[in-house]
């Protein structure tokens, strides 16, 4: 195994161990129901986190995704209510909008040399603000096409369901892996994260790549918003608050370095699963007060990150002479 695979392997090992531990305490955790829930309930987070992985690998950050998810939901709901457009048309429209929104942020980041943290923070305010302007009330979606989509699922043995949105997440992760590891764009993303100045000297098209990365993240946030609206059949301007932080945590637990340049999309998937597992465990336990819930989530997060670091560190020592740490 290569050193670069270590963080991912560590995440995988931790997930399996943690799941095993949960199982010994609550045998019901191993039902297909819980597995199906893990996929369905975290679908929107998983999709958004894939976009976040690209951004973070490139050395940036995107704080706007939670707001974009909310905006997407409200946009879809309002459009379906006020116009006679078919949901698919609206989906295409909203994806175009969020993709452009991301691209615009990328352009500002690159051409005006502004830090991504701040640009996407402004994007975060803007997207949620626009959602408010569209509608402060939560708008239900009652189009029958939504019912059709929601009824697509594969019933696993044991009553668990693999739903459409769970499937969309898995496909997104698959495509994300393909783009990250098997395209020139993907290589350029890693190059950017390895050092922008160097990447420039090596002839990487910095502008196009930066804009592309944030456009992709915007697109996936839009897709995540669509999935979220399928999940809740509504658009609500206050939904998905703080999803960006969950996504960042998932990406980091998945073994991607926030400094950029290294990470795996597949790791992010398991990072999302670990986040989902923490929540499921807390709910199964059911004895924690509101505040202990927060504290325990924080501590488990810390535990996973330390474990991840520890495992990576311990096994990298087994790999011959010290590697340069840049």
């Amino acid at each position, binding site marked *: 195994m290569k050193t670069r695979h270590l963080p991912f392997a560590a995440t995988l090992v931790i997930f399996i161990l943690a799941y095993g531990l949960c199982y010994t305490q609550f045998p019901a955790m191993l039902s297909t129901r819980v597995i199906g829930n893990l996929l369905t309930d975290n679908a929107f987070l998983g999709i958004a986190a894939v976009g976040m992985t690209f951004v973070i690998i490139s050395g940036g*950050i995107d704080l706007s995704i939670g707001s974009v998810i909310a905006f997407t939901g409200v946009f879809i709901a309002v459009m379906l209510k006020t116009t006679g457009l078919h949901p698919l048309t609206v989906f295409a429209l909203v994806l175009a909008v969020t993709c452009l929104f991301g691209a615009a942020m990328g352009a500002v980041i690159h*051409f*005006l*040399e*502004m*830090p991504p*943290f*701040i*640009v996407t*923070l*402004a*994007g975060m*305010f*803007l997207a*949620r*603000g*626009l959602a*408010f*302007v569209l509608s*402060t009330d939560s708008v239900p979606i009652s189009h029958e096409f939504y019912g059709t989509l929601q009824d697509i699922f594969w019933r696993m043995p044991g009553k668990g369901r693999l739903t459409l949105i769970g499937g969309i997440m898995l496909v997104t992760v698959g495509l994300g892996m393909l783009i990250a590891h098997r395209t020139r764009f993907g290589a350029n993303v890693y190059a950017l994260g390895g*050092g*922008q*100045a160097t990447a*420039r*000297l090596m002839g990487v098209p910095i502008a196009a790549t930066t804009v592309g990365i944030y456009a992709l993240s915007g697109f996936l946030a839009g897709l995540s918003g669509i999935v979220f609206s399928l999940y809740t059949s509504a658009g609500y301007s206050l939904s998905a608050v703080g999803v960006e*932080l969950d996504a*960042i*945590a998932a990406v*980091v637990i998945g073994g991607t*370095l*926030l*400094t950029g340049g290294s990470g795996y999309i597949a790791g992010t998937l398991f990072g999302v699963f670990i986040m989902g597992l923490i929540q499921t465990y807390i709910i199964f336990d059911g004895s924690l*007060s*509101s*505040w*202990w*819930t*927060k*504290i*325990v*989530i*924080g*501590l488990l*997060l*810390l535990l996973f*990150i*330390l474990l991840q*670091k520890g495992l990576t560190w311990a096994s990298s020592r087994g790999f011959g002479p010290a590697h340069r740490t840049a």
Partner: protein
Amino acid sequence: MTRQTSLPGLRYAPQILTLLVVLGLSASLFPGFLNVEIANGRLYGSLIDILNRGAPVALLAIGMTLVIATKGIDLSVGAVMAICGAVAAATVTTTGSALQAVALALAVGLACGLWNGVLVAVAGIQPIIATLILMVAGRGIAQLITEGTILTFTNESLVFLGSGALLSMPTPILIWITAAALAMLLVRRTALGMLIEAIGINRRASTLSGVNSGILLVCVYMIAGLCAAVAGTIAAADIKGADANNAGLWLELDAILAVVIGGTSLLGGRFTLLGSMLGAMIIQSVNTSILISGFPPEFNLVIKALIIILILLIQSPALRARLKPVRRKQGQGETSILVKP
């Protein structure tokens, strides 16, 4: 990166200009905006409100500036505010001593900073994640102390910190200005400032030069914790109660914004506390102006976002370079090739 040789006044020109524009805009929308008078033995007016309401963000921005200078970030300051407010309220209701309450709150703030600093400097966890942990758990801890309620208190001395006035100047204003002045003295009259900048730009090289970067990092996070503790105490004193759920909620973002608007780069290194204070005041002016403008609240965020974007555009060196082709020779575009890691 502003050259140090340029005039200090010129250095803050973009920030001062922005502040004046925001204030001017509000004044034109609302004529009484600039009036300041004395009522009830204290200064009274929208400008005073800005200074007063801006206290928490200004205080947080002091610590945040130093943290950002080390190439870090502290997302937990909002939660630390809540914890320290809760500690102060709980102490004052049980012991009745404001002094004890404040002392304990500050100690807890330092402890929170220590925790963050150890995670960052010793455990080597990236700052954004290390402090995210306390951001999530901290509010829980605060609620644990208050048990989810708003812990109200009536102790006059403690309340004085939030809504009292000294020489007709509201106390929060005096506190944040004093804190900022002390911080500036601390970093610029000692070598702390330069060492912080050094580890922010190249921690490895600084360590190799004998700088005790680990301890320094921990200290910086502790300063951030201390500032958050002061802010938290003021916020609790202001409403005579510790609101664990909402005190300092999302204020970390405002503080970061203040630092960036003030001219400190998120990439670490050169920092300016004075700039951050101006940044905090700019943000508070925007907030106060929105409140006083009378727009429906659903537009608040859009307006704020647009103003922020505008401010950042005004301050973007790249844009300025692009707009002034004559001076492009001296543009900073290319320097990044050498300067960036």
